[in-house]
């Protein structure tokens, strides 16, 4: 097996192992901790009979390991169990909402990624001049501002005062036509874009600067090549891996941003669903949602690593 294939196989196997361990962690997090699930669901005033019934219903009397494997077995077959609070099938409820969340994340990424790379390049091009300084000031502000502040400011001024877009996404329907859907998510997309943009810009800038400061760029400059040729032929091939890394890390960051933004705009997605069921202490739903968020996060990180391996000339052309 060539070293590159072996490395890729290793990396993917590692991700699967990680995902397995994360599922253990998430499951353990809901049973090992000192809280009694049944007690927290029913509250302090619950009668002993009610508690016993609920425990039986949740399977809490089984040993934890057995419960974990029966849960994992179900997850692997697409059976996420039923919600305690509503009795609905979790997989079915999540199915719709996951689609909505991905729709939101997709459009945010479509806008944020090219914009961030473009602005990152701009910052490099005008390094230490005003466009660069402006970009770093915005970055500083943006990493200090909670997502919901950006959300409410846009909602308040653009949605309520100016009435340009619907202030909330509560009217969002997955079966509406694309234009209506996009109108409904305009503000949440804007917030998510702003949230990841700054990080992505700053990291893109750093990644490209790092490449631009290498000796081989100086060599290219001393060959009398045009700036465009230098960037296209010498900087770009070496920047792919770091930039893909930046993009993936930030898409992973988007996963977290989505939770808050969905709550702000009352958007019927996974984030809102998760938060809702945390307060209702609906453990099976929380476990399922947590696992899905973690899987997306781990998957994105894995893609970043795979791209770096593929882009590394030392691995692609072994001695």
């Amino acid at each position: 097996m060539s070293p590159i294939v072996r490395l890729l196989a290793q990396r993917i196997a590692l991700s699967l192992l990680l995902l397995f361990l994360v599922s253990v962690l998430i499951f353990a997090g809901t049973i090992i901790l000192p809280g009694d699930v049944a007690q927290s669901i029913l509250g302090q005033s619950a009668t002993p009979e009610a508690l016993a019934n609920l425990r039986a219903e949740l399977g809490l009397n089984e040993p934890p390991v057995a419960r974990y494997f029966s849960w994992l077995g179900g997850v692997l077959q697409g059976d996420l169990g039923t919600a305690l609070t509503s009795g609905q099938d979790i997989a079915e409820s999540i199915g719709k909402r996951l689609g909505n969340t991905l729709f939101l994340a997709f459009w945010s990424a479509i806008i944020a990624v090219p914009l961030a790379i473009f602005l990152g390049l701009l910052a490099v091009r005008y390094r230490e001049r005003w466009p660069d300084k402006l970009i770093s000031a915005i970055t500083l502000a943006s990493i200090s501002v909670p997502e919901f502040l950006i959300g409410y400011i846009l909602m308040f001024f653009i949605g309520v005062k100016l009435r340009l877009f619907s202030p909330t996404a509560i009217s969002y329907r997955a079966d509406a036509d694309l234009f209506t859907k996009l109108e409904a998510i305009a503000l949440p997309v804007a917030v998510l874009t702003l949230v990841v943009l700054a990080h992505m810009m700053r990291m893109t800038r750093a990644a490209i600067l790092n490449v631009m400061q290498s000796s081989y760029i100086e060599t290219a400059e001393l060959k009398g090549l045009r700036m465009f040729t230098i960037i296209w032929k010498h900087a770009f091939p070496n920047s792919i891996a770091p930039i893909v890394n930046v993009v993936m890390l930030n898409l992973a960051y988007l996963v977290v941003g989505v939770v808050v933004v969905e709550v702000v705009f009352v958007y019927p997605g996974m984030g809102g669903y998760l938060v809702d069921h945390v307060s209702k202490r609906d453990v099976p739903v929380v476990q399922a949602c947590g696992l899905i968020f973690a899987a997306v996060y781990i998957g994105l990180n894995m893609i970043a690593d795979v791209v770096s391996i593929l882009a590394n000339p030392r691995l692609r052309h072994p001695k």
Partner: protein
Amino acid sequence: MTDTLVKVRGLKIGATIYPPGEKPQAIEIVHGVDFDLEKGKVLGLIGESGAGKSTIGLASMAYGRGGVEITGGEVWINGRNVLQSSPGDVRALRGGEVTYVSQSAAASFNPAKQIMEQVTEAAIGHGKFSKKQAEERAVNFFRKLGLPDPENIGKRYPHQVSGGQLQRCMTALALCPEPDLVVFDEPTTALDVTTQIDVLAAIKDAIRDTGVAALYITHDLAVVAQVSDDIMVLRHGNMVEYGATDQIINHPAEEYTKALVSVRSIQHEEKQPTDEPLLTVRNITARYKGTAFDVLHDVNVELHPGQTLAVVGESGSGKSTLARVITGLLPPRDGQINFAGRTLSPDLPTRSKEDLRELQMIYQMADVAMNPRQTVGTIIGRPLEFYFGLKGEAKRKRIAELLEEIEMGDGFIDRYPAELSGGQKQRVCIARALAAKPRLIICDEVTSALDPLVADGILKLLLDLQKVEDVAYLFITHDLATVKAIADSIAVMYQGKVQRYGSKSQVLTPPYDDYTDLLLSSVPEMKIGWLEDVISNRKMESAGN
């Protein structure tokens, strides 16, 4: 003067520095330099670090590296002042009329592109040759520069060839566009000594065969004497002396030049072995954890009290590993070390305090050998406190004495390492070792990071201290000139084995084995024509090829 290719007048170069907590300051690093270079001639620019030699070389391409700016003067190339040329003309100059060979070809080649594409890029980009012609030229240069498999080496990626080969590829890259001038910026400094000489010879031949003019920048006067017609000596951004190579090497006029020429001329009388060796290294075999091969095979050496054993070899020879074994940092797989009549425990934590005290170490990089958050007083005082329990006034007095011994004075006691020069840092490290009153000091490449004159000062100091303190040195180095200057006995190491061992006069007297011959003959001598003599008399190819 139609043959004048380069004419530099009153060249001034400035840079911006950023002192911590203060506003950025503009400083001048080259203060008005003049020189001329005729077609087909080689001018050597020589100086210590900070002399401004690389900066001047790059200025001939109208280029300033990282915040460096050309602030005044004229640089005429082929009758055009390149400092006032349009951006388009500057691009045509770079890579067309003037090309550049850097110190580190490994960093200067784009890791993601094949060598051939990079070697021919400028020639094709400037429209001088078609792709086919450029590639033919490149293969020719590959052959001329002695690269293996010249037809196909261009298809490889930079990480697939060795450092010495890549340095030759970079020379091919510079020659391929048929430039009028090549700037060689320390092209052999990063190479092992036996590789350096081959690359140097290849560069010299290529210059002669193509008739190109060159600026050859180096800190090593002996190297530049081999390749250049004229030499300019620079110091702190000023010209010190400028003349024909013969005049500079054989009849230097300025004191500074004389010092540079006579560097490494320390005379040291070899001492005879005593009855009882201080250190005996017996049958040492060692390997690093997690690796499958031995870095040291059956090493045997002895060192007598108050004497110097030089362990010499190139990178990968195992010389530094030997130091780690003796200090106990790397327990050997086999063998034993006797020191002052005792057998040393193989493992550092189980050694007695007395063993630790009597065996001290000095490092190559004095910068990182001292804790940046401790003052000179703390650094030298700690061993006094640790081994002898000295405190307060007694400790301070002893620190002052030690500072006196290293010729620095007690004014330095409250300074931090960052406030010292390179030579001063190394002196403080020496004082720290002396503070323990050791019987043996292991010196690991202690002068190789220093400029030649500073290094000379350190060597003289070490020799003086040896007389006063009667301390023995195990001197690890790749530099044979240093070895000749200070050793009483020598061990030549090659691929983890002791290749040749004995008193200095024995080791340095023929007949030699092939490797010792190669190593000895590879040390550049301050003599014109030395390179040709050596190349024609060699028995063995260098290891870097």
